[in-house]
C-alpha cells in the first residue's frame, strides 16, 4: 500500500511487541519538566481529599447519555 508507506516515511521506527502487563513503566519516562511533577508529588498527600480512599470507593454514578 503506497500511501501507507508514505505515511510511515515521516516516522522514526520503534520496535517491541505490546505487553499484557503494561503499566507504562517501560515507556522511557520522559524527563521534560520533571521537577514540576516532583514538587507536586511532594504535595499530593496534602492535596488529596480527606478520606480519599473511602470516598473513591463510594463514588458510584448512574450510567448516562
Amino acid at each position, binding site marked *: 500500500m503506497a500511501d501507507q508507506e508514505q*505515511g510511515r516515511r515521516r516516522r*522514526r521506527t*520503534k520496535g517491541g511487541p505490546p505487553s499484557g502487563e503494561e503499566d*507504562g513503566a517501560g515507556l522511557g519516562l520522559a524527563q521534560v519538566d520533571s521537577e514540576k511533577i516532583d514538587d507536586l508529588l511532594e504535595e499530593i498527600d496534602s492535596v*488529596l481529599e480527606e478520606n*480519599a480512599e473511602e470516598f473513591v470507593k463510594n463514588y458510584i454514578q*448512574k450510567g*448516562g447519555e
Partner: protein
Amino acid sequence: MAIPKVLGTETEYGVIIRNRGHHHQALAAAAVIDGYPGGPVRVQWSYEHEAPGSDARGFGHENFGMPDPDSALINSVLTNGARLYVDHSHPEYSGPECLDPREAALYDKVGELVMARAGRVVQESLPPNQQIRLYKNNSDGKSSSYGAHENYLLSRRTPFGKVIEYLPTFLVSRQIYTGSGKVGSENHRPACSYQITQRADFFEEVVGLETTLRRPIVNTRDEPHGDPTRYRRLHVIIGDANLSEIQTFLKLGTTALFLHAMEDDALPSALELAEPVKACWQISHDLSLSQPLALSEGGSITALELQFLYLEWLSEYARRHLDHPVWTELLEEWEGVLLDLEEDPLLTSDRLDWTAKLRLLQGYRARENLRWSHPRLAALALQYHDVDPSRSIYHRLVERGAMRRMFTRSEVERAERLPPESTRAWFRGTCVSRFGPSLVAANWDSLLFETNHDGLVRVSMMEPLQGDRVTAGPLLGRVSDPAELIRELGERNG
C-alpha cells in the same frame, strides 16, 4: 466542496455529595443546574420538561439544600447560547454551535467554569459535613459510564453508508490522543493496570442507535436540529471528556477535518478494520502504542500508523481546500503529538490528559510503593478531573506550567457570557440577554417569544449559519423590543 463543519460538544459531569448517603444523584444534578448563577436571565429550554428523576423517595426529611423538583429550572439556555440541563441524573453542559474547532474547544472549557460556579452555590446550601463534588470525566470506575459527545454538521447528501464505512477506523485510532486515561478496566474487558481512554471499554457495536447500552462506535441518531432536507448532525459518542484544551482542540479539529475530506471524497481508502470493536479497547489498553490491528483487506497496522496516514492525507486536503489559519495550527499540533507519541508517549504529558495523569500516577506509585489497584491511586486519578480549581490535580499541573493552555482565564469568562459570533448561537444567546423575560422557551432551532400584540410567536432557525453577528447584528441593533423584532422578521420573510 464540503459544507462548513459547524460543531460543538455536550458533556455530562459526574456529581456526588460526600456524606449524603445513597440515592441523591438526580437531585444533586438538579441542584447544580438550578444553582448556576451565570447571566442576567435564563430561559426555559422548550418541549422537554425533564423530571429530575425518581430518587426523591430516598430523601424524606433530608431533602433540604435541594431544589423543589416542581419549580426548579433544570433545563435552560444561557446567554452564551449553550444549554444547561439534567440528563440521566447528570448535570450536562451542551456548548453552543461553533464555526471552528478552536472556538468549540473554548466553549467546551466554559462548561467547567459553569459547573464550578454552580457547585459553589450548591455547597452554600448544604450542611457543613456534606460536600458537593463535580467531575469532568466519563466513568465511576465501577462500570457506569456517562458521555462526552461531539456534534458535526454534515450534508444530507452525504450517504450515511459512507460514514459507516470510513468513520470507525478514524474514531478508534484517534483514541491515542483523545483519551483522558483510566486506572484499570471495566465492563468485563480484560484486566489492565492503566489505559488510554475512559470510554473504550464500553463500546460493544460498530453501528447503532443506542447511547446508553451496547454503545456503538458510530451512532446513527438522526436529529439534525436544522433543515432535515439539507443537513445531518453527526453525533459522535466515543470520545472522552478532556481537561486539556489542546486535546479538545485536537479531538474536534482532526475529526472535523476528516469529515470535510470524507464529504469531498478526498480519502484514498476507508482502511476498514477487521474487528473495530475489539480494536477499540485493544488500542486503549496498549500504552506502548504498538498493538497490530487486522485490516479487512489483509495485513495489519497500528493506531499510530493509521493516524500518521490520516495526517498525511488531511494535510494535503487542507492545503488544497482550506485556507483558515486554524487548520494550520491544528495540523502542527497533530503532527507534534504523533511524533512525540511515537518517540515516548510521556513526551506528550504537557498536552494530553492520559499521559499527564499516567506520569503523575507512576511517580506517586513508585514513591509510595503502591499497587495499581490501591485506592489512593484511584482517588488521585479521580481528583485530576475535579472542576473546582482548588482541588483539581489537572489545575495544579497547569499552575506549575507542566501543562499547556490555549485560552486565558478572561477568554473563558467572556465566552461564559457571550455567544460565538459566526453561527445562529449568536442570535439565540443575544436574544436571551436582551429579551429574556419575553422568551418563553428556546432550543437549538427555534425561539418562542411572548409579545403583547401577537401572543406567542415562534422564530425558526433552521440554518445553523444564519443568525450570526454580521448578518443579524444590524437587525438586533435596530429593534428595541421583541415585538419590533418579530415585525421586522415578518417583513423580511413576508
